[in-house]
């Protein structure tokens, strides 16, 4: 059975064979954390290239299955970014996300997936530096944990 990995990054970003780079999948809510990521990029704040961003209208759009599917498809870590409680463009999306992600954390623990492989962060549109810090910290932790392999 052909092992299907999440598509590799374009050749020039490919890490040298020696230094393995994790794949960090991020679901970023369009109004806050995606804008925060944009700000980090625009202000030339370097953050680890292991991140793959999927923009979602709201953190409330993130279905728990999307997180398990990411791990099943070979992601080494998953980050969900949303607006701070009360700032949600749709008023309650992040509350729904928070409730669901509490269950996802519990089930990932039951399945034996290291806690540091999944994070939920509230990052506002102005917090580019926090986005940078979170991504760098998480990709560092993933390097220590090593690749996630469902075999």
């Amino acid at each position, binding site marked *: *059975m*052909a092992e*299907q990995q999440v*598509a590799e990054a374009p050749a020039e970003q490919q890490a040298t064979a020696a230094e393995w780079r994790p794949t960090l999948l991020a679901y970023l809510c369009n109004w806050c954390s995606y804008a925060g990521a944009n700000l980090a990029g625009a202000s030339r704040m370097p953050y680890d290239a292991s991140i793959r961003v999927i923009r979602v209208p709201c953190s409330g759009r993130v279905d728990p299955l999307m997180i398990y599917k990411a791990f099943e498809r070979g992601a080494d870590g998953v980050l969900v970014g949303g607006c701070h409680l009360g700032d949600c463009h749709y008023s309650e999306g992040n509350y729904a996300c928070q409730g669901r992600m509490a269950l996802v954390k519990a089930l990932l623990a039951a399945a034996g997936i290291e806690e540091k492989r999944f994070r939920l962060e509230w990052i506002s549109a102005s917090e580019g530096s926090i986005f940078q810090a979170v991504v760098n910290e998480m990709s560092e932790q993933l390097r220590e944990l090593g690749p996630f392999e469902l075999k």
Partner: protein
Amino acid sequence: MDRLKILKSRLPDWLGKLRAQAAVYAPVERAGVTCFARLAPGDEPQLDYGNTDTPLKEVLFPQTECLITWQRTPEGLQVQEVDTSEPTVIFGARPCDVTGLRFLDRAFRLGGIEDPYWVRRRDKTTVISLVCPHPVPGCFGPSAGVNETSPEGADVVLTDIGSAYVVEVKSEQGQAAVDLASDAFTSAAEEDLIAAREAGETLLAELAEQAIDLEEPEARAKAFLQSPAWEQVWNRCLSCGICAFLCPTCHCFDICDQSCRGGGERIRCYDTCSSKIYTKQAGGHNARPTAKERLTQRVMHKFSYGPERLGVLGCVGCGRCRRCPVDIDLQLELSRVEVKEPV
């Protein structure tokens, strides 16, 4: 062919020689479940088992197998078939499971069109059957036409007589398998043959107590589907896949694509006529909308269509379908029906 004998202590030699030539599948225990698995180096088969929880058919008709792979290339679509067949030895199979292979073999060659994935594997497989010392609770092989002491379709049959097995070779493939370790075999003495026969007789006597009446299956099936008991049976069916996936003679499968960027594979996997979406067409039409039609198909395929088209019953009496969560035992229900004239 005269009967041979092999001491249990020489079994590892024979297995070692077999493993050098072919992939050997034997019953092993995996997390509390016994199944037929490919012996990895250092794996020892567990031959003191009743019957495997999942059926022998898994070896030749896996739960999921890749049929073709494709890639989108600049020169266009490239499509290839997949062939994972290899010389195989099935070691220690129970007579009912071996008899189940016969039904599958005929189904996969029906109408002169051969299913290559099954045929390639089956033609490269040597079946070494192991007669049961005692019946498993709830099995009724003889009532379903299974020869419990020398099953049809086996290349070699082993009968346990304590410290050794009496060996019956039934085909050239079987003879070839024995010749691989001919020094491990001696010709069976008279008392060995008597011991083997007695073991067979005690087994058949114990099986007789679990026997049920499945004569005239076609008439029985039709009569059962009109009996009051039938109403309760299909009403409680949960439409799950236990009875089909555990059954040595069920061969229904689904085909679907699993694709990723730039290519993919087309797999086939077990399917069951009891599933709610088995005959559901795009646009919503479903020829078998309730469990009544679906379970009718199961009864008729095994006890009417199978015998009519393939000449053999679609049941080998292994008793695995009694794992039904709502206690549906079709064979018992059929045996209780008094058979009127074929209606």
